[in-house]
Structures are given as C-alpha cells and as structure tokens.
C-alpha cells in the first residue's frame, strides 16, 4: 500500500473504529509488556529461592564456604573452592580452544570457501549444535578420553610437562579424563554457537566496504582484521559470550569427563569438578539439610558467576562502542 492509500483509508475510519483500534493497541502493548516482565519475575523467583535454599549452608560456613576446599558429606563440611576453580578453568580452556577455531571456520566460510563448500560445512556446523550434550559426554568418555590418554597426553607430559613452572600444568599420570579433557570437549561443544554467530555477523559486512579495501590493495587477512572484525565486533563478542555461558553451565557432558574429584590438582590433567557437575552428581542422593543447602549454594554461586560474566561483557561492549565513537 502506498502512503496516500493508507492516509485515505485512515480518513475513512469512523470514530468508534479508531477507538477500538487504539484499545487493541493498548491491549497488545500490555500483553507483550507482561510477557517481558514475566522474565524478570521468573529470574527474581529463581534468585530468591536459590538464596533461601542456600541460607543454611551460608549461615553455617559463612565466608569459609568460598575459601575452603573440603567437600565432605560424612562430616558435613562443605567448601566451594574446587568446583568454582573447575568451572572457571574448564570454561577458560574451552574458550582458548573454541574462539580461534570458530574464528577460522567463520572466516573461511565467509571469505575464502568456494561456494559449493559453504553450504555443506555450514550445515555440518549447525548439526554439531544439535547434538545433545549427553552424546558429547559419552563420546568424550568412550572415544575421546582413551585416544587422548594414549596419544596427546603422554606427548604433552614429555614436552610441555618438562618446562619448569608451566610444566606443572601438564604433569602427572595420563588418566584420559580430567579438567583438560572437559575443557577440550566443551571447546568442541561451543564451536557451533560461536561459529554460526560469527559467520552470520561477518556476512552483514556490506560487500562495498570490503571491495573498497581490496581495491586499495589490502590482503584478505587485512580485510578480515581491519575491516570485517571492527565492523562486527559487537556481534563477535556476543557470540563468544554465548559460548562462554554455555561452557560455564554445561552439565551432562562435563560430569562424564571431568573426573569428579573435589580437589584442585596442580595439573590440568588431574581430575576436578565443576559446579554443575557436582550438583548433577550429588543432588539425587544428598541427605541432610546442610548437604542439600550447600549444593544449592553452589547453584547460587554459578548464578553469580554467569551474571558477572555477562555484566563484564556488556561493560566491555560499551567501552568498545565509546572508543569507536570517539
């Protein structure tokens, strides 16, 4: 409809029709506002019930809960240090592996791949995202861990493991499972999320901008690094954050390969645990108020960690935008 047609029609609307329309607009607005506020309500509810559930544990252990490594259901002494460490460490490894690979795939798909290869690779990446996490866990335990144990782990121990200081992170017996394995599996799991977002935002870069850069004699690398990335950095950071969020909260796959020990090993190959793995492992059989409350307190901590990470991401984005604007 052209503008004049719309104007003509609105002139035809009688007074009662206009009133009805504005009423419906209002109803629509309040309905959508209600749904939007519902999210806040649910989030608030989750937070309140977590705090309520965690109170007995936090009241008993106080600040010690965040600083001790003991996790002993028999004596009912609980501390959250090792699951927190495991959560952050596995997520860090996942990001260290996932970001560069995702970036490589996305650049290849948008800038370098021949057209006939783009679709199959793109679909394969999206299929990776569709695999349920338990499948990753089982695959990690039965396929990846034994291969890792027999090939890469001994190699890492013999090479990096021999370097002073850093070597400590790659020492100890090759169990196959542990913090490092969990991190690597998580890295594979976050790949499709980060990759597909990066690919989508890379594709939003107007061809004209890129062509201009190429016209000035820029190499592909320079175009990606100096044109595409600055143009899309908000989206790229968003994709990375989505992946990080998944890595922090992932449960099923991690419980299979992390080793599930409430200890902080000096090596990345040592077994450890994460917050979500500890909850999933122990909630079913937990008896006693303090034990259950400690597990809920772990959930509350995960809530805080994820919230902090998202908040930091937002702040980072705002800074970047400001700098770009200046």
């Amino acid at each position: 409809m052209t503008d004049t047609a719309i104007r003509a029609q609105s002139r035809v609307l009688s007074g009662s029709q206009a009133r009805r329309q504005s009423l419906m607009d209002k109803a629509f607005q309040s309905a959508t506002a209600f749904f939007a506020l519902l999210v806040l309500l649910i989030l608030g509810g989750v937070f309140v019930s977590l705090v309520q559930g965690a109170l007995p544990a936090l009241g008993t252990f106080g600040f010690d809960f965040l600083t001790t490594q003991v996790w002993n259901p028999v004596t009912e002494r609980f501390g959250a240090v090792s699951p927190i460490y495991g959560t952050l460490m596995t997520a860090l490894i996942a990001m260290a592996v996932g970001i560069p690979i995702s970036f490589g795939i996305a650049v290849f798909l948008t800038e370098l791949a021949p057209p006939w290869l783009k679709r199959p690779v793109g679909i394969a990446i999206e299929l990776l995202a569709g695999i349920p996490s338990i499948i990753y866990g089982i695959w990690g335990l039965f396929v990846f861990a034994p291969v890792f144990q027999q090939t890469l782990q001994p190699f890492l121990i013999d090479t990096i493991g021999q370097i002073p200081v850093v070597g400590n992170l790659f020492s100890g017996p090759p169990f196959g499972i542990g913090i490092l394995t969990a991190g690597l599996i998580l890295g594979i799991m976050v790949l499709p999320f980060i990759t597909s977002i990066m690919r989508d935002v890379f594709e939003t870069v107007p061809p004209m901008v890129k062509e201009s850069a190429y016209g000035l004699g820029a190499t592909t690398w320079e175009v990606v690094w100096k044109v595409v990335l600055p143009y899309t950095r908000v989206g790229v950071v968003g994709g990375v954050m989505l992946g990080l969020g998944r890595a922090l909260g992932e449960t099923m796959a991690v419980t299979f390969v992390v080793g599930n020990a409430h200890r902080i090993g000096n090596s990345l190959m040592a077994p450890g645990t994460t917050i979500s793995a500890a909850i999933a492992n122990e909630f079913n059989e937990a008896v006693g108020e303090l034990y259950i409350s400690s597990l809920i307190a772990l959930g509350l901590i995960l809530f805080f960690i994820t919230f902090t990470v998202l908040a930091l991401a937002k702040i980072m984005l705002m800074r970047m935008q400001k700098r770009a604007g200046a």
Partner: protein
Amino acid sequence: MTIISKTVIRSAIAGLAGIVLGSSAYAQNISGAGATFPYPVYARWAQAYQQETGTSVNYQSIGSGGGIRQIKERTVTFGASDSPLKPEELEQAGLVQFPMIMGGVVPVVNVPGIQPGQLRLDGPTLANIYLGEIDSWDDDAIKALNPDLELPDLAIAPVYRSDGSGTNFLFTNYLTQVSEDFKDQVGSATSVQWPVGLGARGNEGVAAQTGQTRGAIGYVEYAYAKQNKMTNAVMKNQDGQWVEPKSETFQAAAASADWSANPGYYVILTNQPGAQSWPITGASFILMHRQPQDPAAARSALKFFDWAYANGDKMADELDYVPMPDNVVSQVEQTWTTGFAEVNGEAMWTGGNQ
C-alpha cells in the same frame, strides 16, 4: 541468562520428578520413588505384575536420598533406599522398613596379565589402596596376598563412583568396618570425600574408566561386572575365607545376618560372618508410612511386594540380583501384619495370596 535457568531447572527437576510423576490420581496405580540400584528389577517386576493383574506400578529411580524425602513428604506410596534408616529415624518419621532385594558390590581391576578371579584382596588392603597408602601394584601388602601372581611395578589408579549412590554407601561402609584409618579419614555415605583417585559417573562410567586405564581399580554392582565380563577380584571375608562374587555368596551373607534381632531390619550386610559370605553385600529397602494417607494404595503396594517375593525370584536372577531368602520373607510379611496401623479396626495386611 538461559544458561543459569537451565542449570537451576535441571537440579530442580531432579527433586521434582518424583512429586510430579510419582503421585498418581488412581488408587489402583502404585507410585514409588527412590534408589537407582534396584530400578531394573523393580521395573521388570512392575511390567510382569501389570500384565498379570492390570495394576501399574510407577517407580521413579531418583536416588535413595530422593526416595527418603519423597516418602517423608507423602508424595509417593512407597520410597526405596539402599541404606536402611536407623530405627529411631523410622520411629520419628512413622515409617515401616523392610528389605526387598539384594546385590553385591565387586572390586574390578585392570592389571596387565591378571585374569578374572585371580587377584586376591582383603579389606584392609582395599582400604589402603583407596586411602592412597598403597599406590603400586607390586606393593608388599598385595604381594603377600598373591604369592603366585606376577604383579607389575605399575601405579594404582583408584576409580570411584562420583554420583551419590547406594554402591558408594556399601563400599565405604565395608571399608570403615575393616579399616580404622578409613573410618577416621573418609567415613561411609552415599558420597564421600575420596583422598585419591578419580570419579566416574554411574556403574558404566566406573566400568569404562577402569577398562581404559592401565593399573586401575574400581568397584561396580555385580550385575554390571558380570555382564561386562570384567576382571573381578576375590575377597577375604570376615571368617578369613576367600570367596567369589556370585549369587550363593551374596545369599550366604543375607542368611548369616541376624534380621530378627534388629528392629526395622536395620541390618547392613557388609562384612557378615559365615564361611561363604561375600563381604560387600547389600539389601535395598522399601519405606512406607505406618499410617498411610491412602490405605487402599498402600494395600495394593503390599500386594505387589507379596507378589514379587513369591514370583519375582527368577526375574531377579536373570538380572543378576539376589532374591531375599525365604526365612527373611516370612519375617517381613509378619512385620506387615503388625507394623502398620489398623484402618477402621482392620489390619493393613492379613496374609498373602489374596
């Protein structure tokens, strides 16, 4: 944000599954929740029972702790737990407890050159392995028990169940009975703080991890070890005899136990006397209210248990569980007559085969 709510929801579901799915609107349908260890045999019985009588039994395997919580909150007709409640706890919650089925926990190893049933272990040695005090397969303590075996100079990698489980309870309960150090440093529960080793999820996880790691030792339910043809160890029992894990030795442990002397059947079958007794044997228990809110449902649950005692042995056997000995069954049915409160002047249980 979605990530957080996912985790929270997941943990909430674990607890809520029983409430939502376990409670049923029909008295004809029996709802139960609890231990995961007896789940396969309960499910099998329920299926056969439904075919025979049309009554369905809905059992949710949410873990022993969950089962105890659910029955205390009266959201299910019966709860199930792998570790028995103490008599005073039963009294306090107004619950009746009885054993339903048994199984054994078996140490399995992955040591090059060692065949199933060759390695001999006793309780204190097993405890020291899991305490990290024995850390090599050619340790003198293991050599002394196995003078004829060629034991390699290989580090021991202890593998444990990371998820809270009845298997953990039985294993740690046994070790606390045979080792003071283990009792002091670790203790016994469905989850404990292990000083060494690595945790794997579920029987399948322990089996896989043990199978993959050279020098590993783990412990799994008997059914699991048998079906996967794992290298089991032979154990020295309280009488100093070497015993193989099998139905006969599990049943010997149950038969030697003094059920009648213990109110609420508070008997833990680990480290039982008797020349044939397998030392890490356990029963799985059923919990019901003395004064059920829905007597009709409770009555039909008892009918199901009665049917299972009478007809379920073969099915249990096929799944490598061990049925309760006959003398224990008749004691349990005696308990049913006297243990429950009367409803309208009538006993809850007036004898079987009705």
